[in-house]
């Protein structure tokens, strides 16, 4: 009588050091091989989309900081951009440049945090300490600008809250001077490391057609060879004034996504350098009515550090939005996880999950 295998259920529970937040996967295993993986979400569902209907447009802004808490300023950018498009407000040029400088620095900080956590997931504890040292310098820059490290709430509808303080430009200059050399050092830590290569090459393969069908965006899509970046395809703010490359990688696996993110950090330093050189004078906030009333519907999207972050706003002419939907990149990228986990081992789950770069604040909202 042939024996039938019984699959073991393994619960990678909501409390786990490597799940980047409260996220649960229920794995069905045949020995070490994964037969089925079912993600369970909702452990951080705070009901933001319902709460915003009870708040005015200015009160909603700090809630957007808490969505993707690793890269807060990028979330604010998409929100103020959507409202400015609907109200047809023109943002002064100096505010645009300040926004770009802060957003690209935020992208660098987000990728540094990701890389530190990814190294630690795979067992390499050293990159955690080195990369977080640089992230602290970037958070210092945010602190002298807005007063808070993690949740700045600095952007406003029509510009930024106030002008950059003296000492900001020197500090950013100093950071940009020393950062590329440090990145080369960190490359030596992980990129050529044999153990890292064995654990990430050929693991978690996602083809380009699958990636587009799943709606995946950001470094996960670019790591599958598709050169799709919203800053090039649908330039928002003043990104068409800057000269930068879009890194892609043809290997379609975890290593490809890692290489894309490391290169993106270099391109972000290029953009910040150009923005600092061209920073114009002027005011930093446009004239906006005291109580903001919005009418109409619009979907606005930006290239956040994790992918395409979008906001759909419907206003009915009152001070509160009628409907606000947040299209979170980590939520959509995570849908491709069961596909990437096909025919892989239990030890690969952590590597693949880490390479998608999720942040549960925006997955669950």
């Amino acid at each position: 009588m042939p024996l039938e295998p019984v699959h073991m259920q393994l619960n990678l529970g909501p409390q786990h050091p490597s799940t980047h937040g409260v996220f649960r996967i229920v794995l069905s295993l045949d020995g070490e091989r994964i037969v089925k993986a079912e993600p369970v979400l909702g452990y951080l569902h705070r009901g933001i989309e319902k709460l915003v209907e009870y708040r005015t447009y200015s009160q909603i802004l700090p809630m957007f900081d808490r969505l993707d808490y690793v890269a807060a300023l990028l979330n604010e950018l998409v929100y103020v951009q959507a409202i400015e498009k609907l109200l047809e407000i023109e943002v002064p040029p100096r505010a645009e440049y300040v926004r770009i400088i802060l957003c690209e620095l935020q992208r660098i900080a987000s990728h540094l945090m990701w890389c530190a956590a990814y190294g630690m997931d795979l067992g390499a504890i050293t990159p955690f300490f080195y990369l977080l040292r640089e992230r602290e310098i970037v958070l210092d820059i945010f602190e002298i600008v807005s007063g808070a490290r993690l949740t700045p709430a600095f952007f406003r509808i029509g510009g930024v809250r106030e002008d950059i303080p003296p000492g900001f430009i020197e500090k950013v200059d100093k950071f940009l001077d020393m950062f590329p050399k440090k990145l080369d050092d960190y490359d030596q830590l992980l990129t050529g490391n044999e153990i890292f290569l064995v654990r990430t090459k050929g693991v978690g393969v996602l083809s380009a057609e699958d990636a587009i069908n799943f709606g995946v965006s950001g470094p996960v899509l670019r790591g599958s060879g598709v050169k799709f970046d919203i800053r090039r395809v649908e330039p928002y703010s003043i990104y068409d004034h800057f000269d930068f490359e879009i890194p892609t990688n043809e290997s379609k696996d975890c290593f490809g996504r890692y290489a894309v993110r490391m290169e993106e950090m270099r391109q972000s330093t290029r953009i910040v350098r150009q923005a600092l050189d061209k920073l114009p004078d002027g005011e930093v906030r446009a004239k906006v009515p005291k109580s903001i009333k919005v009418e109409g519907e619009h979907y606005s999207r930006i290239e956040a550090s994790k992918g395409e972050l979008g906001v759909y706003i419907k206003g009915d002419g009152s001070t509160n939005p009628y409907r606000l939907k947040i299209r979170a990149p980590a939520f959509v990228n995570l849908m491709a996880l069961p596909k990437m986990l096909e025919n892989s081992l239990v030890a690969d789950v952590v590597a693949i999950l880490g390479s998608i770069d999720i942040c549960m604040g925006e997955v669950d909202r």
Partner: protein
Amino acid sequence: MDLRIARATEDPSRLEAAREKVEAKFAGQIKAGIVRGELVIETGPERLLEVCGFLRDSKNIDCSYMRCLLGMDLGDCLEVIYLLYSISKGLKVTVRTKVGRDNAGVPSVYSIWKSADWHERETAEMFGIRFEGHPDLKTLLLKEDFEGHPLRKDFKLKSGDSAKPQTNSAAKEADQSGNEAKTEPGNKRAGSGSSQMTFESLKETDNDAS
């Protein structure tokens, strides 16, 4: 699948050409218009799969990428909005479908774009819309035994409309009418309000804690 990347375009002539194509294929059964640089198509639930399949497979429109899927409560009916994008042509397309509030059923587009999987699950639990043909429509973000559909307009939050900052008395009322299983330290509120109010709320705290 065409994997060339084109810049997103709001060029009216290209949008008009796409609109004519869609209207030629589905004459009279849909309504198509150009709003704010996007091609907006309104259709009923019975034509939805055909329209979406056509938008994805046609060589000139080629909407291979679904940006987002959301639901909306319009008061007298519910609406499902599909935001699509064509990577190779740079066209932005929106498809809108209206269904009634009771027994709302819409065919699932999971077979066309796998990206609709979790979006539809979330819309189903938040609005109570049934997506027919979806492989596994169970709750995604809410608890399994959650009652009600939170994003409908008739689902009120416990605190009512809190667009104005809450005073101490409003907070106390909301807390008392809410869960009973709360212990006192959780709903202490210090600072604002008159000292009389603060002292009273603390007096209750002491009585309950002792």
